[in-house]
């Protein structure tokens, strides 16, 4: 699943480790989500949305749509 995490992170000048700490996950998790190799669960997607103050669909893009 495509996402804007890298851009959103860069806008805030956060490293992957910074974002991982805010999400309470490992840096590897952030990297896997960011590169689209791992799709987060709905609770984690909501947590990301809350953190960036956006809606889930503004962060993640359904490639089939």
């Amino acid at each position, binding site marked *: 699943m495509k996402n804007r995490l890298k851009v959103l992170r860069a806008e805030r000048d956060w490293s992957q480790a910074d974002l991982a700490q805010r999400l*309470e996950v490992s840096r590897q*998790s952030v990297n896997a989500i960011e590169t689209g190799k791992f799709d987060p669960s709905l609770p984690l997607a909501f947590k990301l949305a809350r953190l960036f103050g956006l809606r889930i669909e503004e962060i993640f893009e359904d490639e089939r749509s």
Partner: protein
Amino acid sequence: MEHEANSPAKRRFTDRFHIRVLLRLLALALPIWAIPQILPKLGTAGTAYLIASLLGFAGLGFIVTHGVYLVTAKDEFQRTVHIESILWSIGVTFTVTTFWGLLETFAHIPHLGALWICPMFVVFMGLAKRLVRLRYK
């Protein structure tokens, strides 16, 4: 806030892992080294059952430790990697033991003791974890 690498779940898993490895080494060493020496002196099969059960409980502890880690781990990505590694290891262990078992029966190759299956699983799981992590890099 803690990273998964330093999380309580990971720490508990690592602690239990070290205890389990010690128990397993003890449980493996006892049947192999001690049974032939102790059993003739004691003259009872009960001792063998007692020692062998150590190995069984170490195996049970192994499963319980992984189960507790999967339930308590908050990082869903790390949990996924762990689950995938377990599944790959189960698959490879089943394949190797089935292959070996058939060769034992029909090609009369040396017998592989069942007590080696769990250590084999642990080794395959270690390798699988590295490969699974590479896939997500």
